[in-house]
């Protein structure tokens, strides 16, 4: 049993659709040990959600997978159906992005939390409902509202129900797929604060997926920057954000308007977001990169260590 909680090893996913092959994830390596929180940041189509669903082996049928994902040493893709069910929701839990569609509209909020408890522990329906009420209270919703339906709650409240349901069985790893993107700033602050407290209280490790760099800076110790399905820069948040090396990370940080300091013109990254249906052979960022040379065009650069807290996949830098 290795001490690493989750190991994603040279992992690739290809979706074969009606018209073309979509290379959503290309040779990704991530490791999370228990109690650690890692941010996965990248733009639309960078393959973040695909990795999250793959970790729970929930990819759609038309996905073909290469490489492996190990949870506590054994691969999620070779787990039996029963093993998978015991892992999902109890060992690894997931929070979904859109609170309006992540809860079943025809079941009460209490039932949707209790169902997770009863799926993993054989407790009576009444006792599961009691624990559900406790969980609702913990995420800041009055207990008596447990028999109300999702459409009677605001977006922020529904996301709290989602969090309560995901923490019902004290998971060891929490995967949050853009949990606050659909929420307003003040509500988002409440949810992030809640996640921070719960993480300290249960020391669950966190895989935070978002396109908002500010959230990563708030919540995570390490960050992996993704572009077109590959991780191009990885390290501690402090190191990567204060001393970004990869042209894409630098481009991202310069393209974001700031809340303080001088308002100089934004540096837009030229070109279009990478089209996962026809990706360049070499470095995926090569078409938009100002500092690329022939090596970038032919070979995909592998991760190189700058220092203990900083890894990067780019020829031009080292």
């Amino acid at each position, binding site marked *: 049993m290795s001490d690493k909680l989750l190991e994603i090893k040279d992992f690739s996913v290809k979706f074969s659709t009606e018209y073309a092959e979509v290379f959503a994830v290309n040779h990704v390596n991530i490791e999370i040990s228990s109690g650690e929180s890692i941010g996965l940041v990248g733009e639309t189509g960078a393959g973040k959600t695909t990795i999250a*669903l793959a970790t*729970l082996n*929930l990819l759609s049928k038309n996905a073909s997978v290469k490489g492996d994902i190990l949870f506590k040493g054994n691969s999620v893709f070779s787990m039996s*159906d029963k093993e998978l*069910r*015991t*892992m*999902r*929701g*109890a060992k690894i*839990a*997931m929070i*979904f992005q*859109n609170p309006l*569609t*992540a*809860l*079943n*509209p*025809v*079941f009460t909020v209490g039932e949707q939390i209790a*169902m*997770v408890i009863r*799926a*993993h522990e054989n407790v009576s329906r009444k006792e599961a409902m009691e624990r559900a009420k406790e969980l609702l209270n913990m995420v800041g919703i009055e207990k008596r509202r447990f028999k109300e*339906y999702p*459409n*009677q709650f605001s977006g922020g409240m529904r996301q709290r129900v*989602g969090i309560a*349901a*995901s923490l*019902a069985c004290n998971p060891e790893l929490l995967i949050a797929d853009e949990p606050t993107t659909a929420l307003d700033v003040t509500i988002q602050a409440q949810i992030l604060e809640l996640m921070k407290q719960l993480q300290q209280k249960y020391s669950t490790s966190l895989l935070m997926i978002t396109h908002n760099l500010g959230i990563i800076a708030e919540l995570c110790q390490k960050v992996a920057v993704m572009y077109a399905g590959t991780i191009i820069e990885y390290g501690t948040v402090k190191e990567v954000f204060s001393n970004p090396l990869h042209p894409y990370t630098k481009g991202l940080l310069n393209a974001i308007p700031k809340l303080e300091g001088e308002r100089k013109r934004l540096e837009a990254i030229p070109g279009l977001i990478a089209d996962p249906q026809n990706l360049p052979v070499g470095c995926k960022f090569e078409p938009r990169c100002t500092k690329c040379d022939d090596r970038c065009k032919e070979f995909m650069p592998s991760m190189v260590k700058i220092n203990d807290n900083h890894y990067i996949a780019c020829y031009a830098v080292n």
Partner: protein
Amino acid sequence: MGHFILRRFVQTLIVLFFVTIFAFFLIRLAPGNPAIMMLPDGAPESAVKEMEIKLGLDKPLYVQYYKYIKGIFTEDFGLSTAYKRSVGSIIRARFPYSAKLAIWSVLIGCVIAIPLGIIAGSRQGSATDFFAMMFALLGQSMSPVWLSVLNMLVFGVWLKWLPTTGTGSYKHYILPILTLAYPMAASIARIGRSGMIDTLSEDYITATYARGLSKFKVNWKYAFRNALVPIVTLVGIQMGSFLAGTIIVETVFGVAGIGQLLNIAVGNRDYALVQSLLLISSLCFVVINFIVDIINSFIDPRNKLN
């Protein structure tokens, strides 16, 4: 909850009100004078005049309409020109037959079709899915006209398993019920299948799997209740419009229901009877749909609140 029921109830009343107006004026469109129809041929002018007064045809329209509405509540639908008996009594005698047919066919339809639709929807592209699609398509293409004749021919005449006409033992009802049930089952299976497919593509289903629930539980508890809403609505509509379905079947199999009655009434140009049957059938439709809406609001709370 109460507010929703009240609003739906008022809507039902409005619709019914307009239906009575439609039925009331429809009869006025009919050629000929009902008074003449009630009397033996060649009746003198004075007798016709007197019958008109008796039928109240001389009074202004709104008075006649008021009398007509009052009649509905006191089950006095006027006189049937063909049977010379009160329309109410004729309908009351025949209604149970049609009701029996309708209830049984809807029951059988649901028992066959709901599981078929759900399984087909959950296993898209499998053999069951293909069979369900074929079953549904064939069923919807079977006009009751052709299906009833075919059933009678095959099971009644050739195989002689079942009696073909009349009412009597339960055996007489099997063929008509099957003829009614198959098209109903076809559309229920179809709606169930597409309901399941849409539901299974929702985020909360992935979330339910991500929380460690088994495929069986997801399909038959969490997705099923969402797919049930369109099914209940459809069953309501089919149950409500059973009178239309039974017309053909009762005529072919000779079941003495109100469907057959409508056909006879039309033959005898018995407009009072036609008018009342039209009213009864829309009354059934509207009432049953009202009940279905309430059932649906228990299953799916969303439409209860907006």
